[in-house]
């Protein structure tokens, strides 16, 4: 058995490396900004539970950018004896952390507000002396919240754009974290204004509604991250639908006249996909093994050129195909031994 084993020089195409640098810069800004918000909120905390929740949320939102930055350092490392596949998966691990942070944040907000409502907690907000002026602490809290929440809107939007270009799931989860951030912040602000009107339940109710949305986002992302670690069929970065690349590769492989049947199996390793292409060569192709080698290599190159995300594939000649693969031509799939094609797995979720 022979195989062709091409490897790309760069993990990302050159034009995307520029976007990646932008994303790294954006995440550094996020990190610095969130840290300053954490300090500011801590100083205005007072006895208020609502502010404490906002503070814990800000602490949690430090996690996705941190994970992203660590992963973006590790992902490009060359394969070593210890990590023979390189460290592309660092990005997937970062995605798990980012997704978990989102889910935990949603769960925390939900439980926190539910407890507040059940216990009928009446938050006390008094007066603070600032530069010789006596100010109702509520106004100061709102100012601190606006400071911590407003930029999240812009950072989140910018990240969403980059996540689309880079197909970056960590960035995508972080953008959703920013969205969750400003939503809870506006809930907290509405809550404080409500408290001022004597409506002690205002912020708990607002936060409860928003937490459902955050839990939903978090759950979706945790699920997607775990699927990635389980080597599930690659999905687009927003997890809405399967990545079309497997079908395209199957079509390309089966188009070759020297290929009787071919089947592709891909897994996600962070930004990139790796996997195997199994081909059953025709009898004529098998007669000349030197030429077969050339053909395998040439097929591997063609498949790599289809999409930048396909990073490292192995093309293997086999006697029969025993892996399930979506998008195989009808006749090929029918004959596939053990190629249990699970119809529930194809198409969008």
């Amino acid at each position, binding site marked *: 058995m022979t195989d062709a084993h091409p490897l790309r020089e760069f993990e990302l195409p050159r034009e995307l490396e520029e976007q990646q640098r932008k994303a790294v810069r954006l995440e550094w800004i996020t990190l610095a900004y969130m840290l300053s918000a954490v300090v500011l909120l801590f100083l205005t905390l007072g006895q208020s539970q609502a502010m404490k929740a906002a503070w814990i949320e800000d602490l949690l939102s430090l996690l996705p950018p941190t994970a992203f930055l660590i992963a973006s350092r590790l992902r490009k490392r060359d394969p070593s004896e210890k990590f023979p596949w390189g460290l592309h998966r660092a990005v997937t691990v970062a995605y798990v952390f980012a997704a978990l942070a989102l889910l935990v944040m949603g769960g925390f907000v939900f439980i926190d507000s539910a407890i507040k409502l059940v216990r009928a907690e*009446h938050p*006390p907000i008094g*007066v603070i002396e600032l530069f010789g002026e006596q100010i109702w602490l509520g106004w100061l809290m709102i100012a601190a919240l606006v400071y911590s929440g407003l930029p999240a809107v812009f950072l989140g939007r910018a990240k969403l754009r980059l996540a689309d270009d880079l197909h970056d799931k960590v960035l995508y989860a972080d953008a959703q974290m920013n969205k969750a951030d400003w939503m809870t912040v506006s809930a907290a602000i509405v809550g404080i204004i409500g408290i001022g009107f*004597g409506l002690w339940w205002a912020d708990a109710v607002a936060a409860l509604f928003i937490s459902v949305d955050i839990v939903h986002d978090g759950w979706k992302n945790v699920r997607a991250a775990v699927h990635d670690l389980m080597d599930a069929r690659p999905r687009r970065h927003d997890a809405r639908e399967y990545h079309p690349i497997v079908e395209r590769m199957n079509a390309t492989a089966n188009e070759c006249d020297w290929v009787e049947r071919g089947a592709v199996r891909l897994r996600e390793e962070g930004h990139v996909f790796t996997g195997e292409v199994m081909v059953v060569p025709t009898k004529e192709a098998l007669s000349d093994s030197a030429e077969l080698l050339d053909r395998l290599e040439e097929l591997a190159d063609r498949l790599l050129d289809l999409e930048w995300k396909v990073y490292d594939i192995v093309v293997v000649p086999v006697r029969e195909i025993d892996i399930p693969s979506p998008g195989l031509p009808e006749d090929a799939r029918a004959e596939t031994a053990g190629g249990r094609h699970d119809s529930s797995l194809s198409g969008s979720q």
Partner: protein
Amino acid sequence: MTRFALAVLIAALAVAGCQYPRDPDGTLNRVEGGVMRVGVTESDPWVLLEGDEPTGGAEVELARRFARDLGARIEWVPGSEEELVDAAKEGQVDLILAGLTTKSRWKKDVAFTRPYVETRSVVGAPADRSYPDDFAGVPVAVELGTEEEGLLEQRTDARVVPVTDLASRAGEPAAVHDYLLDDLRLADSGTELDSAEHVMAVKLGENAFLVRLERFLLDREDEIRRLLVREGRP
């Protein structure tokens, strides 16, 4: 975004028009020109009781002035701290005076005002004599069975002399509250044993009442100090 900007605007307009923040249970509106129920627990020199009536104390005097400010009549409710906190939770007591500090365990059950005065426990010594930094071997008087007695033992090498009446040893080194120094003819030696930030407590969430009380207290820092020196006199 625009929606909550609008909410802020509405709130700002509301503030211009009427009371803000407001009380969920309307404490301030009820107390103004009415009756303020003040819970008291003996705590020298903050609250001094004789039977069920307070006879003096810095917090009692402040509460009287605050009531005058509100045009309210005071109804005193004596009780233990726990009794008063429970009563406040149910809205049966509007204000608690018990020499509370920010370190109090009732932090989560009642709303504390911002600290209105800070006191320190220090080792006081006659200004004209000098002592070693840690008062090694020096007899230092301290009131028997107080927190200061323990702290003096831990933090200094002084020979601890527990007494029941500090005034009898005026002019000799003693561990005392800073507001007593002048009366005992002592100066702060710079050795601090403890400090406390004093607060009063109201029902949780009664923010209009809380804010009114805090504004009253914050405007009177010097007055409170003088009051403390007078009420604390041994």
